[in-house]
């Protein structure tokens, strides 16, 4: 896996008059995770959407470097695996059809996604629209890891998961970090995660 680093500085994002992010900075190195905490509305999801390239910050810089080369926005999107509560896959398709579709448009095979689903114990023949919230979270993880991303952006990654699901996804996160990937994990409360190199509290 190439060495990817992430650095963001002095980010500002407002929605109308409401200032959600103001002067937020951080840095994550390969093999490390940054934990972002704060109460509801403190800007955790907005920060992750900015880092994923789904929102543009009004001020500040976001820089992904891969072996000293700065990545463009489009390249950045392709290297990101993203798990968030507001991310949905196609309810009219089965779990397997969803993974096969996204694998094709990511120009990769679906094998890694099926491997993750197998480990998390989610059947592939169920319609995505008929999944429980915990099962949908497992599918989001499989989708996020489908293309073996260097960067994982995880917004409340263990939400709705039972003990087995949380254990399985934590193991996947650690494997990702062990392989030299980096992660930004956002959660309302503190999380016990190995390999956390920094903690950004947006509630202060």
């Amino acid at each position, binding site marked *: 896996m190439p060495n990817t680093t992430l650095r963001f500085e002095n980010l500002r994002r407002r929605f109308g008059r409401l200032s959600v992010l103001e002067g937020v900075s951080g840095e994550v190195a390969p093999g490390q995770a940054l934990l972002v905490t704060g109460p509801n509305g403190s800007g955790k999801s907005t920060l992750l959407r900015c880092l*994923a*390239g*789904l*929102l*543009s910050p009004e001020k500040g810089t976001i820089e992904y470097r891969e072996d000293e080369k700065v990545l463009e*926005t489009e390249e950045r*999107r*392709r290297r*990101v695996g*993203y798990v*968030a509560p*507001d*991310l*949905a*896959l*196609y*309810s*009219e*398709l089965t779990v397997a*059809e969803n993974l096969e*579709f*996204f694998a*094709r*448009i*990511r*120009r*990769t095979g679906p094998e890694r996604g099926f491997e993750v689903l197998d480990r998390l114990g989610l059947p592939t023949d169920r319609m995505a629209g008929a999944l429980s919230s915990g099962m949908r979270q497992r599918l989001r993880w499989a*989708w996020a890891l489908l293309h073996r991303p260097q960067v994982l952006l995880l917004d409340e990654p263990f939400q709705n998961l039972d003990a087995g699901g949380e254990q399985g996804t934590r193991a996947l996160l650690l494997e990702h970090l062990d392989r030299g990937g980096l992660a930004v994990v956002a959660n309302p409360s503190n999380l016990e995660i190995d390999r956390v190199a920094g903690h950004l509290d947006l509630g202060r």
Partner: protein
Amino acid sequence: MLQVTSTSAAETALPLRFTWLSEVVAVFVKDWRCEFRTRYALNTLALFAFTTMVVVSISLGPIGIDRARGTKVLPVLLWVILLFSVAAGLPRAFVQEEESQTATALRLSATPSALFCGKLLYCLTLVGALELLVTPVFVTLMNLEVVSPALLAGTLAAGGYGLAVGSTLVAAIIAQARTKGTLFSVLAFPVLLPLLLLVVELTFNAVAGGGGGVALSQLLLYDASVTVAGLMLFPVVWNP
């Protein structure tokens, strides 16, 4: 040396399933698979087209309108039926992605130009199916005599493409807006008005016996221009 050359060629030649075209096909197949399972656009288009055709037939049927008036009025009515049927169903191509929150996964996965072309291909087949359904029924119900069937077929093909590409572009622009319905009408008007003027003129010529002339070239130019504009604009309107 030979081995090095062949390895290099194998590395540069991507398998078919990993090309831009395969992305386009994947989006197209996915959209039709979802459509066949929900039948939202198919039902909307078919219902609207059928209802308006019946209303027009009852009001202006073969008994109620003479040939001279029919030649002038019926081409307009045919395209009004097609336009409003399309307007009722096609904006869903992108709006559905935003409303069901699948747009985020698409933004992070798809190449914008491939996504646009996949959606365009889906809309194109939908419009083509609509035209195949509506036109023969309309011509029969209205007892419309077509002097130049080839020109009518060409107009339907090029006009249908124009409707599909114009609607796809406008649908992509409005997808993230809150007032989608109003915005579609406002934006679609200037985009689709030149197209409608051209296709009505060409359909009139097909019925009355005139040739394609300049209007056909203008229609093809319109199709090419909106396609290029769509490919250039789409990455900007699709990504934040």
